[in-house]
């Protein structure tokens, strides 16, 4: 609401009508000011001419009769205008809403409007869920919403909600259809570890020979001298104590994820018939869980501090493969494939010194477990 101080300036937005009393006084003051200005423009002195007799010079706020407080004045204005604020934006209420609100009877509503109106109870049925993982059946339920076939929010009903084109059917596509992932991951890792000078096909031939030898090997027996050297099988003593964990379908659930190297569900006696499982089980059993990092100078007196560092599944397997290849080179057979295969069989039967190497790493890791925090962080405390 324009205040009385703006009376000197021309009023552009005359959206209200002030009280007649105030208006008269304002008009008188405007006339007075205009005569004063006109006399100045006509070249008279710049000196202030005295006011005509009978009237003293008044300031901007002095001509107005302040019979009321500003807030009272505001309240009076509001009463005139009504309690609802004016619709300054210019958007009118839709007629349908007005009719609905006022409860106008149906015979008064034009037919065209009646045709466009939606039956009560329909309207925005769109789910405002922002979760990206929606199950298929809820999508189906949402798409079958209204009885007269109006599906709100689905401009492209062939596609799922929020999509313009239907998503491709990926149920028939498997990992093997990807050209660069077409081999078993463990087999691929071992093959590339065997490869020399970039001769991949030769390494693959050797790998195939290794798997053939594993196939014709007898089932691996437990070594009674070293009962701790067991394979990662679901029927072995170590696995029976742990509770079986279900495969984790929902990545958001609080259920802990299963281990990277799960125990093989095949019985020990049938391992040679599944040479890839035999290989995977052996490598995962012999793989160390940690590596020992030596941090220089932290142990005091210039000595380095051993810090155990956890390894991921691929790192563990790589370490196991390196140990296996080193142990294989110590054997007397001429062919590489025979050496590696017989080393694997020895490890599976618990007779290999590679187990001792793994045990050493784990023992050192356990004894140095308190150093885990020492290596972390940037600045070293002095």
């Amino acid at each position, binding site marked *: 609401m324009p205040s009385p101080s703006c009376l000197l300036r021309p009023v552009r937005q005359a959206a209200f009508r002030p009280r007649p009393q105030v208006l008269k006084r304002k008009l008188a003051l405007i006339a007075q000011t205009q005569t004063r200005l006109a006399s100045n423009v006509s070249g008279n002195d710049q000196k202030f001419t005295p006011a005509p007799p009978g009237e003293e010079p008044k300031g901007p706020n002095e001509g107005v009769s302040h019979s009321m407080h500003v807030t009272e004045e505001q309240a009076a204005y509001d009463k005139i205008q009504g309690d609802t604020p004016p619709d300054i934006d210019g958007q009118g209420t839709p007629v349908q809403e007005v009719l609905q609100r006022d409860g106008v009877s149906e015979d008064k509503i034009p037919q065209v409007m009646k045709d466009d109106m939606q039956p009560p109870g329909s309207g925005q049925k769109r789910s405002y869920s922002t979760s990206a993982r929606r199950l298929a059946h809820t999508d189906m339920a949402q798409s079958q919403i209204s009885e007269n076939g109006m599906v709100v929010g689905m401009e492209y009903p062939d596609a799922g909600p929020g999509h313009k084109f239907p998503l491709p059917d990926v149920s028939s596509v*498997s*990992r*093997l259809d990807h050209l660069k992932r077409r*081999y*078993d*991951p*463990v*087999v691929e890792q071992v093959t590339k570890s065997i490869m020399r000078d970039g001769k991949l096909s030769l390494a693959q031939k050797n790998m*195939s020979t290794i*798997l*053939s030898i594993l*196939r*014709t090997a007898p089932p691996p027996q437990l070594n009674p001298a070293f009962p701790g050297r067991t394979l990662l099988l679901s029927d072995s003593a170590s696995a029976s104590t742990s509770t079986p964990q279900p*495969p*984790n379908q929902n990545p958001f659930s609080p259920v802990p994820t*299963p281990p*990277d*190297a*799960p125990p093989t*569900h*095949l019985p020990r006696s049938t391992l040679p*018939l*599944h*040479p*890839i*499982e035999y*290989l*995977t089980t052996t490598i995962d059993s012999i793989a160390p869980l940690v590596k020992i990092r030596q941090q220089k100078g932290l142990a005091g007196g210039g000595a380095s501090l051993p810090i155990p560092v956890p390894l991921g*599944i691929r790192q563990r397997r790589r370490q196991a493969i390196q140990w296996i290849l080193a142990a294989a080179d110590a054997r007397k057979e001429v062919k590489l494939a025979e050496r590696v295969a017989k080393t694997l069989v020895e490890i599976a039967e618990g007779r290999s010194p590679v187990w001792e190497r793994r045990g050493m790493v784990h023992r050192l890791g356990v004894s140095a477990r308190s150093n885990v925090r020492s290596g972390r962080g940037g600045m070293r405390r002095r």
Partner: protein
Amino acid sequence: MADAAKVGSVLALDGPVIDQLREAKAFKTTQNWNLFRAPSTLARAETIEVAADIQDVNDSLGDTAGLGATTMRRVVTGEKASGKSIHLLQAMSLAYLNKWVVVNVPDCQEYVINQSAYTPAATKEGDQSKDQMYNQPQLAADLLSRLAYSNADILTKLKPIHKHGDRIDSRKSKNLKDLALIGAEDRIMAPRVWDATWKELTVPVEGAKEKRPPVMVAIDGVNFWMGETRYRSSDYKVIHAHQFTLVKQFLDLLFSRGQNSLGNGGMVMAVTTKSNHPITPAFELLVRQTRARQDGVEMTDSSFPLGDQYAKMPDPRVAELFHPDTQTAVTELKGLSRPESKGLLEYFAKSGIFREAVTDSEVAEKWSLSGGGIVGEMCKLGARTRVGIYATGPREGVKVRV
């Protein structure tokens, strides 16, 4: 193995037969034995044919030595890995089971690559115009050794009946095995001892009551003998394979040149090899022509195979092998039939190597993938390992075939 109802089933070999085959060097590393504990072979339609031929030879033999003796002559061809060497092994097994004497040449390549000693053979009088022939003593010794040890049971019961010259007769060998071992142990004597042993086995004494057993001659890789060798004469001229006495002897027998035949009956089976083989256009053309003639295609037909007009002249020594009097039959080994391939895959499945269910669609798939049932390819497919079974893991393994 001779039973027609057994086509498509995999039959195990008997223990004594396995020992004999091993002594004869019939087992090769290219024959898919290494995945199985005991050697077994698939009985094919061609196996039944060989068994029938052996039976025919047995039936034709009369009461006295050499009476009614027939010599069967076969050349077996086929694609790579179509089962030719195994076919030869099956023929040898059948011969051993029928108490025949088996002479095996496991690898013809040894005779032509100049890795064995060779000596000029004495030319006979009146043969000045003919080629200089050569002996290969070590190869003759190896031949005698295989013969002696693989046929030990039969040869110890046969006594020498011919005269072979002082050097050999003075040793007074009690039986044919001892005779053969003279040459096996003494390399210099080997060519003469070979001639003597061969004469004992294939030249009967007319009217003798004691019958000698028929002889099976098995030759693997005969296309190596159809061209020039890596040997050179004293004039530094290349020696042709047919100038070697052993090679010439076997080829004369195979293509019935001269009077060469098995006097006590028997069979000569030669098998070609398609892996690492020499280029022998003349031999290949003649094989095609023989097969065309067998199929009934006349020489005047437009579809009769003719040589390339603009190629080099074919090897004359090879060209004259298939003369009109030859009775050598050429067999081509093709792919397996569906029942045979099913039997083979079932064998692999029962051995625990093939992990899929052996249904008709699976058999059809493997049959197609192996190029129409080529045995070697089908064995590779049956023994294949691909992806393992993966439960869970960061590499999202998928359960596929093992």
